[in-house]
């Protein structure tokens, strides 16, 4: 089926089987292999991307269901070769080791901090509970998010401080 997607600001058209998940469409049709696929049934969170502004699991969305949607993947987080502020914070706080869960962590965190730039540590931990990491013990990831919050602060909240 012909399906139109806006991926990281670019309009793309793909012709896919209805059974193809959005995760596999991104990886295999569009060669955006930054999105990782772990469990393929919505448990691990590794494939989390942002669809129409909200974090979703791309293994639990059919590509055909996303027809017309705006999609942001981890490839859309950096400006060329320069890491974005969230990625820089992950690096600074050792928020990754093997890196498998990292794209999903980053996209979950990006959606959260865009919507709630002043999220508390408890709120950050609650939202991250949907993403499994088997290396870090999460402490570095939580620190990275806490540190990255200032980069997402809205102008008026910055003034208020």
């Amino acid at each position, binding site marked *: *089926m012909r399906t139109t997607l806006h991926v990281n600001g670019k309009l793309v058209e793909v012709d896919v*089987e*209805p*059974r193809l*998940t959005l995760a*596999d469409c991104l990886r295999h049709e569009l060669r955006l292999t930054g999105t990782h696929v772990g469990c*393929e*049934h*919505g448990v691990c*969170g590794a494939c*989390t991307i942002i669809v129409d502004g*909200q*974090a*979703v*699991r791309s*293994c*639990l*969305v*059919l590509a*055909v*269901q996303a*027809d017309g949607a705006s999609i942001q993947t981890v490839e859309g987080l950096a400006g060329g070769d320069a890491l974005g502020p969230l990625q820089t914070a992950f690096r600074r706080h050792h928020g990754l080791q093997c890196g498998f869960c990292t794209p999903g962590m980053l996209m*979950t965190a990006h959606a*959260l901090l865009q919507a709630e730039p002043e999220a508390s540590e408890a709120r950050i931990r*609650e*939202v991250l*509970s*949907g993403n499994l990491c088997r290396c870090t013990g999460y402490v570095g990831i939580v620190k990275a998010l806490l540190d990255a919050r200032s980069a997402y602060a809205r102008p008026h909240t910055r003034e208020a401080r």
Partner: protein
Amino acid sequence: MKLPSFDYAAPSTLQEAVSLLGAHAGSALAIAGGQSLLPMLAYRLVAPSLLIDLRRVPGLDAISVTDEGVCLGSKVRWCDVESDARLRTAHPLLAQAVTHVGHSSIRNRGTVGGSLAHADPAAELPGIALTCDAQIAVAGALCPRTIRAEDFFLGPMTTALASDELIVELRFPAWPAARRWAFEELARQRGAFAIAGLALYYDLRDAAAANVHIGVFGAGPRPQRITQAEAALNGRVIDEQAIAAAARTASATVEAIDDVNASAAYRRSLVGTLLERALTRAAQG
């Protein structure tokens, strides 16, 4: 696993969706958020010939709050319930329960209709619907009908919904402002399926409990009411003695299953504990 092969349709009216379901009765399935159905497909526990996507069907995503109660359209997502401030007073039990559904990225797509139709015994919404005497409005090839929650959930992943019927709306009766209520759930980790969960409410008449409703999910093969504990509490002041007696009754009468997460005996004991905590919390107001 990769999903089995199927055809796909995205009709633009409810009537079209229903007639497609009817034409493929038994082999077509409706999909909205897909947060339960896609894992079922990935496990190949279902293999429909046709998926009917409801994303273009209008009019199923409204939350209405009136004197009659709260109505949730079948395409209302968990995140819609969470962000609707009216529900915190119009139905605080529902609002609280929904925060326990999966994780935030699941709640961004999962829907009311999907949860009801999937009928996982450990799911929160079927438990809340049963506890609160909710009604499920469905559309079908014949005439629309309304099914009481107590008649809807038949067993694990099994409902009274016919293969050519679609859920349109979930209707909760009005919620008095002074009502006492509580929600308790135990899961291995946040967002995981409940080993058991419990919802309750009652109204106060001359300091005594009336209209006591206690519902349990996750413990048995389908959500259940704990009617003997309800009867024992009706007309009584909710004090320490009444709470302990009700907890014992709940443990003794709840239908509990053995599975990989917990034994039936553990679940029976847990339901007693959850009822004790819930009644204590509700009594504090």
